[in-house]
């Protein structure tokens, strides 16, 4: 049992029902271009991009329609050819309306590409510049502009690039399909990242529930002695940056620090693919690879869809929603966002659309905390979720701050495991926001 397990991992975590078999053996299907795309200016974390087109402008696929606006920002390209009908606040998968450029497609399949670069002779600066102009954002969920992460501050000694192939969220199989269908491109992407960051060593961390991907990747990295494939225990949240670094290198990222600080750069499998496509093929990021799954959708699929495609179009493409569906989530079931409007469009970083039924959710009634300690055992960051949640609910924010509430990464492991069905992470999220507000106020005083 616990003594005999030598697979690399971290302490804590949970193992939810994977439900990956719904889609894991289905190849990507490319969706037809929709009639209308709604391209959010907030495809990334940071400042929204600045539109450079107007209502009525004719645009081609691959053309920049909104430019990078600040250091932590990213340009946005038109994913289709057509005409801009409006630039307005639109429904967004984040749950808050965001400014977006709405384009009516014209059925023309022109694609403005950048000149392809030779992956062996390209320089670090050229890669970073290309990643920046191609508008690539992290595919792991946070959608951080990737070029920033490829350019670690000079004083940080980064010695390893880790590709995150864990895909620890249940249901999602998008990264898995990339590893199976485009194994060589994944490795090519990793090598480009290593070159850009000036790092010798590369690793691909994959959970041990994906033996076929592990085998294929091992075959593909055979000729590179500096790249290894690390088999990690299947456990949520194995793909969280801190957990992944711990499992692969044994290093722990201190609270408030970044992977840079322990010498690591982490990129997602999907990001590696996007980088490969941008550098080698000259293609900006115009599509999202999305797992559409759950027991509430008629035909679960792995889909390649244009950025800006409304959720409804994708759900229709997958046979529509069943009658017993109760929840639609963008992202994974552990950290994704529940949707209320199918007109919200998919983003560059959208990895999944889940249609869930009552049975999968297991929403039991809340009962008092019995201090069983399951949340304490499961918390990968060694917090005491039940205490933090209680302090948050009592609005004792100073006490919660002392117990490191701001360290929480909101992975949801505690809520998942709680037998009393207490919304622990939800309370902690609330408390954390309030504590961070308090901290900002203190700074300004």
């Amino acid at each position, binding site marked *: 049992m616990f003594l005999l397990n030598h697979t690399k991992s971290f302490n804590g975590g949970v193992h939810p029902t994977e439900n990956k078999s719904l889609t894991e053996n289905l190849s990507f299907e490319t969706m037809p271009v929709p009639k209308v795309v709604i391209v959010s200016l907030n495809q990334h974390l940071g400042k929204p991009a600045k539109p450079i087109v107007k209502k009525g402008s004719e645009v081609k696929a691959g053309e920049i329609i909104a430019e990078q606006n600040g250091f932590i920002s990213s340009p946005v390209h038109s994913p289709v050819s057509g005409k801009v009908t409006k630039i307005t606040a639109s429904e967004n998968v984040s749950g808050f309306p965001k400014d977006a450029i709405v384009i009516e497609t014209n059925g023309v399949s022109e694609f403005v590409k950048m000149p392809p670069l030779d992956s062996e002779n390209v320089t670090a600066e050229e890669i970073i510049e290309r990643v920046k102009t191609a508008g690539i954002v992290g595919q792991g969920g946070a959608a951080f502009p990737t070029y920033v992460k490829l350019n670690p501050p000079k004083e940080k000694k980064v010695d390893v690039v880790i590709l995150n192939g864990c895909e620890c969220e249940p249901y999602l199989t998008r990264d898995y399909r990339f590893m199976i269908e485009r194994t060589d491109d994944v490795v090519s992407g990793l090598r480009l990242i290593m070159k850009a960051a000036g790092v010798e060593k590369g690793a691909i961390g994959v959970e041990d529930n994906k033996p076929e991907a592990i085998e294929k990747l091992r075959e593909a990295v055979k000729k590179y002695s500096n790249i290894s494939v690390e088999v990690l225990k299947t456990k949520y949240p194995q793909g969280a940056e801190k957990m992944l670094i711990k499992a692969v290198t044994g290093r722990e990222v201190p609270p408030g620090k970044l992977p840079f600080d322990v010498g690591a750069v982490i990129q997602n499998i999907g990001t590696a693919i996007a980088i490969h496509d941008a550098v080698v093929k000259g293609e900006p990021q115009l599509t999202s690879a999305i797992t559409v799954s759950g027991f509430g959708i008629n035909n679960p699929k792995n889909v390649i869809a244009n950025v800006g495609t409304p959720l409804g179009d994708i759900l229709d493409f997958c046979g529509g*929603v069943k009658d017993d569906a109760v929840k639609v989530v963008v*992202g994974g079931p552990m950290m994704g966002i529940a949707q209320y409007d199918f007109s919200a469009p998919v983003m560059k970083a959208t990895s999944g659309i889940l249609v869930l039924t009552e049975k999968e959710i297991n929403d039991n009634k809340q009962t008092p905390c019995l201090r069983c300690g399951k949340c304490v055992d499961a918390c990968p960051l060694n917090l005491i979720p039940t205490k933090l949640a209680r302090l948050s609910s009592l609005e004792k924010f100073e006490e919660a701050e002392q117990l490191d509430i701001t360290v929480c990464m909101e992975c949801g492991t505690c809520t998942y495991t709680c037998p009393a069905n207490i919304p622990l992470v939800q309370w902690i999220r609330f408390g954390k926001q309030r504590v961070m507000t308090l901290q900002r106020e203190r700074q300004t005083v």
Partner: protein
Amino acid sequence: METITVNPAYKLELSSSPHIHSRWSTKHAMWFVVLALIPALISAVLFFGPYQLLIVLTSVVFCAGTEFAIKKFRKKKITVDDGSAVITGILLGLILPPNFSLSAAAIGAVFSIAIGKEIFGGLGYNIFNPALAGRAFLQAAFPVAMTTWAKPNFAVDSVTSATPLAAYKFDKVFAEIQPMFLGNIGGSIGETSAIAILIGGIFLIAIGIVNYRIPIAMILGVLIFGGIFWVIDPAKYPNPLFQLFAGGFLFGTFFMATDWVTSPLTSKGMYIFGFGIAFIIVLIRIFGGLPEGVMYAILIMNSVVPIINRYTRPTIFGEAK
């Protein structure tokens, strides 16, 4: 949870992540504990006769009834179906002496729930293990009945009618280990059979309801502390295996000390809690006026759980150890 209708065809639930939940609920866990107590119930019938089931049943009925009555009186939601009062009832029944008076058992049951649990606010808020609180009350109220031990059904001689611990304490006689393992010895209704308790306890650990840390710490603790005395003078002090199988140790280890509500939250805390109980048990058994100390050891350690929790906060991931 708010439901917004967008498209008349669908009603979508909106809530913050995570959107899935493990199948475990408090109720689930409680009824699995009841299941795990069945081997001990069988051993009780086997060694002391079917009358013992009546004691357990009385205790269960009065525990559940008391909880129902108090919730009703306080106009709170009736929570009897969560199974916790039923567990308290079974546990209390199993730690009473065989052939115990039914009316006294009922009094103990009422005390367990009313004073041991509901007075603190009900399940989740009590400090002491309710079943042990009830037994402690009975020990004070009916001292003679609480130390009158029936002979087990397969007893070979009259000596075994006293419990092995009493035989050691008052007559300096060491019992053999094998009958203690099977349960063919004097003792409380459900505490005598080590094998029956182990089956239930290991089942609870295997399915993840009981954390292994408290049992491990208690067993190691009693072997170590008991072992120290035994090494000092094997003629005077019993060997540590005797400590392990005697009295209510194993029952207390798997079913009492591991009670979620009254044991620590943190992993370090669980070890401290377990070692503390083992230490106090050995002290009481060897130096105390009473032959057995499991009940008091657990109750004493229950009272310091909040302090243990406070001082055993785990180091945050990434902070210097």
